[in-house]
């Protein structure tokens, strides 16, 4: 505990002055139009993010978190919150968005700006920012206010989403919207079937559902490791007897794991794995 106290306090002292808060990006409700302010704005840095979101912080840090600004608004009976995450660079913001977006919820809210939209929540990445606007009631069924809030804040964010984030898996024909960039060992646990895959030396990965000619889409992971030996080691424990649903192969620093629970025809599976390994 003593070591922990020292660590916590030193981190607070060292990193708090580094927290940035650009209030112009989360302006007052009046500046946004037709919203009222609720409470004071808050901001957090990498050392204090834990105090805001507890164990959820690790994933954000893994993706390249820099600072978080928060502001609460209301409109009518809707209590809203805007969480603006400043990330290391546009790729980090887009990667985090890919991890957090909801299934089958993506739509274009502005030309070139795709967002994950549900009645209680809008998520998007723009430039080096990841924005989450939510109704404080997670069971809210009316999404007009939260949608307008997200659009008005997004208009103030500079930059575009980077291209090429999912180039390494493009040849495999991923289902649009299913792609997830895996930034590290924590986000590598995004699916239970990935549990037997080794984390040692893991650098980055791409997870997606892939269309095949013979069956429903299958999920596959493309993972890059620090060395070819570590890539081999990562999939060495996955055997036909221990995990019959998984097909694995490594080549150089890259490993590919396919979750074949839908029993794709072997030739199509081989073609998919080859395309993912050779890019």
């Amino acid at each position: 505990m003593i070591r922990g106290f020292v660590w916590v306090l030193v981190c607070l002292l060292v990193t708090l002055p580094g927290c940035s808060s650009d209030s112009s990006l989360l302006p007052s409700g009046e500046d946004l139009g037709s919203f009222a302010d609720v409470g004071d704005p808050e901001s957090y840095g990498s050392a204090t993010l834990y105090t805001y979101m507890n164990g959820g912080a690790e994933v954000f840090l893994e993706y390249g978190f820099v600072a978080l600004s928060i502001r609460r608004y209301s409109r009518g009976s809707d209590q809203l919150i805007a969480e603006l995450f400043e990330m290391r660079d546009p790729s980090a913001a887009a990667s985090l968005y890919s991890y957090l977006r909801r299934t089958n919820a993506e739509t274009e809210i502005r030309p070139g700006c795709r967002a994950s939209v549900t009645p209680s929540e809008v998520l998007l990445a723009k430039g080096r920012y990841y924005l989450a606007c939510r109704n404080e009631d997670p069971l809210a069924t009316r999404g007009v206010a939260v949608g307008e809030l997200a659009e008005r804040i997004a208009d103030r964010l500079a930059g575009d989403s980077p291209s090429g984030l999912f180039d390494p898996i493009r040849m495999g024909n991923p289902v649009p919207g299913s792609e997830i960039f895996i930034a590290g060992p924590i986000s590598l646990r995004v699916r239970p079937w990935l549990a037997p895959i080794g984390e040692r030396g893991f650098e980055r990965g791409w997870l997606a559902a892939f269309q095949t000619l013979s069956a429903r889409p299958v999920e596959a992971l493309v993972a890059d490791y620090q060395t070819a030996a570590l890539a081999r080691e990562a999939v060495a424990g996955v055997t036909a007897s221990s995990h019959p649903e998984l097909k694995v192969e490594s080549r150089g620093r890259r490993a590919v794991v396919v979750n074949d629970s839908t029993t794709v025809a072997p030739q199509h599976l081989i073609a998919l794995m080859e395309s993912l390994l050779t890019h």
Partner: protein
Amino acid sequence: MIACREPPSKFYFQVGLLPGLGRRPAGEEQAETNVRLGSRTHIDRMTSGSRPDEQKGMAGLTRRDLFRLSAGSFGLLSASLLGACNFRVAACKSVPPNPFVHAGQPLLVVVEGEDLQAMLKAGVEALGGLDKLSSLSREAVFRGNFVAPQPYPVTTHPDFISAVGGILRQSGFRRTVLFDSHGTNLVASSSPSSIMGKLGVIGKLTGSGVEVDVRDFLERTEFQLVRNPAWPIASPVGVHRMVHEAGVVISLPVVKRHGAAQFTCALKMHFGSVSMADRIVTHKNEGSEYLDQRLVHFADTARPQLTIVDARTILARRGPTLTAGGEVVRGINKIVLCGDMVATDAYCARLMAERDPTFSVQMVARQLKHATELGLGTADLAQVKIVELRV
């Protein structure tokens, strides 16, 4: 070796961490809300805490906050280094064996329904009543999950706490106290009652008969260092004295996914029972067995006699907050009552796996195995007497 020349209290005193130092101007205190703190009254700021003429700067802190934080941190740093030998490491609290058993097997009661009061009443009756707890003490400490200022199922619902308090009073308990430690007075935006305040928990529990006791997570003297020689990690854990010294602890978790630990329910929620330093160090060590083992050790320090899980709604896919990407799943409409934390988690992990395609019980197998090895309970549901009711 560090020589201990001064008791830690002197360092706390010097830098303003003892009551009376770092005090706010008198005018501010009029706007504060009193929160009952056991036998004493704790003044806990419910406002943002900054004077109108103060500019909030980086990290939402005023210059005064930064000064306080700097001074306080230096003092705590000093106290940590110099006062180490003044803190005796004790054994984990000793509690009687699980009182809720049937033919030698832990009893786990699941009640499905729509009426919370009726569900709790039926659940307690199926446990055989709470006399075995009230005979230990007529006062109970409640532990809830207040991880973030977000409503149920991210946090424990105040109506649930109030309803459990009512059941306990009917069972002969004279006093029930909801304890939590999720903030510090050193940072205005993260005060000890900040989360409960934003959620309206304190207001909702006022008049319900359940007292609220929120403590500063940097009040180091309020934590008792404990260690169980059976832990594979040798360093002690600082458990809050409110939990360590309570005659009866009743845990009121929610069922959620968790970024690093994958799942949080009966075991993981005792992160909130130990010092912030232990929590941070443990999260910094995740990625190995350390996190899975340590969260079990934290539960070992708390040892609630009864866990009552509010699984009417759960947080699936991500967690432990909505910010982390959690998805609210409604319609489960169950509560789970059990004196065995491990069996509770084994059952609730199964509930989660049935509704979250990104989760499997295997993801928490290491936690459950370690908890079983330490004697906290059983993860084998075949060895548990499960009673399922519908009201």
